[in-house]
């Protein structure tokens, strides 16, 4: 009797089910748990009120990122509430024996940047964090997704969560990407086709030669944004690119353990004929540099296109009008030439070394536009170090930019990095919701290349004209 062909998702999920509950969720064992200062304090309070311990402290890793300042990190944090949360993370980690890379630690950075770059994230794992962009780690062929604080408490106390099994979706993109088209464009394009809720209830596998030919940094950008189409997570089958990235990183397996792990990781592929509840196929040649014009990540277009009409978008006309009204944009306008006040490059979406290389490739030999304020924020201290070592810092400084210190920064504006009300930002982050980057701030999501083109021209500009 032949076995039903399994998808990558099935292989990883099934190997982590401790118990299946009839007419209920699966009890899923979690291999890696990341925590940060914002969504963990109440979970630790919960543990204390129930008198519970952390079951496997060595499987949880703490880093401070959401609330941290991106200048003068050597000074005490000025906002007392932020300082209090950072202190709580430090105290809770110490109390329960959890490894903690807080502010000032050379390995500190955004949780979804530091996990992979230190070899904590590995193929075939289940990975959770109280942050929806945990989907980033799916780039390694892991099942990784964001959870709420009650679930953080579950993982701390039992290393498991209760999770209904999602449906499976496969999104293939095949062909050759044009000049100036980068992973961020690929994922913004997919979300614009599926809408911000198009993958809700699904776990997505990204497949096809566009992803096979992508770097790990690029794959992380893509999987990072799977939540922006509503997906529980996104994943890409591990291959030589993945193994080469992991090998030699601090927490990666070594010696015999490496050989054993590698043999297992090589089995993590979707088999021919595996079932998916939904499949999409896109052509790489259809993808342009992308930019969003509305207040959810599904409202994006090719940079040379015009803002669609409500009829073209479908759904509630009032909601669409509210969205365009917030941006002060109108149907059928061109995005090219719109004035840009702020540029933000960074975040767990585009805060890795490859993103800064791309940004630098456009600004090299040019100058920052006078009216633009640019915040350039590496995803981690290790990325910051690379920026210095590769000479990117010199390019930034020559062009009139400053480099800030690592953290989530203006992606969610919990610290002081807030875009002022009414101002327009081209941002390499992941969400353009109302007020996301500060009350009243207007966000246009785009790639590091589009951000760089906006930073030097001061307007929404097609980066292909500058490269």
């Amino acid at each position: 009797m032949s076995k039903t062909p399994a998808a990558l998702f099935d292989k990883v999920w099934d190997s982590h089910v401790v118990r299946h509950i009839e007419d209920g969720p699966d009890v899923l064992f979690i291999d890696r748990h990341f925590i940060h200062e914002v969504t963990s304090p109440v979970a630790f309070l919960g543990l204390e009120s129930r008198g519970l311990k952390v079951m496997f402290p060595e499987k949880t890793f703490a880093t401070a990122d959401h609330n941290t300042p991106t200048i003068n990190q050597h000074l005490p944090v000025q906002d007392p509430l932020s300082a209090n949360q950072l202190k709580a993370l430090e105290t809770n980690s110490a109390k329960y024996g959890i490894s903690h890379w807080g502010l000032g630690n050379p390995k500190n950075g955004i949780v979804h940047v530091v996990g992979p770059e230190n070899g904590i994230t590995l193929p075939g794992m289940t990975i959770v964090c109280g942050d929806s962009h945990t989907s980033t780690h799916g780039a390694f062929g892991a099942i990784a997704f964001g959870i709420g604080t009650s679930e953080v408490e579950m993982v701390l106390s039992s290393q498991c969560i209760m999770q209904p099994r999602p449906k499976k979706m496969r999104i293939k993109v095949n062909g050759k990407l044009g000049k100036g088209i980068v992973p961020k464009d690929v994922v913004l394009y997919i979300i614009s086709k599926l809408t911000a809720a198009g993958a809700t209830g699904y776990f997505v596998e990204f497949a096809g030669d566009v992803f096979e030919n992508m770097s790990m940094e690029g794959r992380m950008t893509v999987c990072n944004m799977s939540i922006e189409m509503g997906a529980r997570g996104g994943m890409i089958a591990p291959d030589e690119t993945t193994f080469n990235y992991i090998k030699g990183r601090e927490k990666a397996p070594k010696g015999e353990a490496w050989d054993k792990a590698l043999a297992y990781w090589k089995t993590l592929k979707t088999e021919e004929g595996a079932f998916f509840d939904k499949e999409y196929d896109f052509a790489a040649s259809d993808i342009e540099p992308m930019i969003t014009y509305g207040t959810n990540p599904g409202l994006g277009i090719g940079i040379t296109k015009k803002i669609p009409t409500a009829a073209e978008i479908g759904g509630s006309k009032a909601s669409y009008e509210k969205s365009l009204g917030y941006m002060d944009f109108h149907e059928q306008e061109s995005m090219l030439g719109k004035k840009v006040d702020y540029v933000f490059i960074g975040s767990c979406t585009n805060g890795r070394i490859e993103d800064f290389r791309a940004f630098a490739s456009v600004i090299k030999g040019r100058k920052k536009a006078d009216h633009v304020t640019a915040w350039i924020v590496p995803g981690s201290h290790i990325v910051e170090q690379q920026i210095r070592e590769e000479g990117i810092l010199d390019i930034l400084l020559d062009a009139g930019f400053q480099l800030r210190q690592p953290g989530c920064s203006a992606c969610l504006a919990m610290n002081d990095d807030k875009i002022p009300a009414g101002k327009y930002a081209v941002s390499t982050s992941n969400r353009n919701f109302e007020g996301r980057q500060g009350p009243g701030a207007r966000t246009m999501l785009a790639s590091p290349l589009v951000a760089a083109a906006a930073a030097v021209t001061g307007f929404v500009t097609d980066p292909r004209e500058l490269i």
Partner: protein
Amino acid sequence: MAYDKFTILKSTAVPMPIENVDTDQIIPARFLKATERKGFGDNLFRDWRYEGDGTPKKDFVLNNPIYSGKILVGGKNFGSGSSREHAAWAIYDYGFRCVVSSFFADIFKNNSLNIGILPVQVSESFLDQIFKAIEANPKTELEVNLADQKISIVGGASESFEINGYKKHNMMNGFDDIDFLQSLKGDIQSFATKSIY
């Protein structure tokens, strides 16, 4: 954290016929700095509810005394975005016990169930009927019967909704997953010894 048992909820409802209400609207990130679960209801829908100087915005539904109740009725794709459970806490703390929509974001739905808010997913046409009934008469009551998995416009139409048996049992008894998982510790321990990670 313990929550109230959910059996039958009969209440007027607050209508919010906006699609893609994301968690940054429900509770903006700058209000996530607490280390305790207290007072989040004050900042529920903060930037839709108040001007920058704290003056209530008159045209926002929570500031309109005509509408009140323990049920929030939202447009399609309610709760998209961040995993912050603070969004569900803010809704609970404000006094809602049930959110009705034609579509929920996954993480928001899980978070709600984990803290005792019942997310009721209805068809788009039924959602439309609810909005119309409330528009016609703001005193319209909805009745949500968890045992029967039925939501009704009191004096009008009704529709059944889905929830898995495990979560339904938990909601009806005020149980949570943490207690259940503690009872599986032996299984989890032996599972862990087999893990290559």
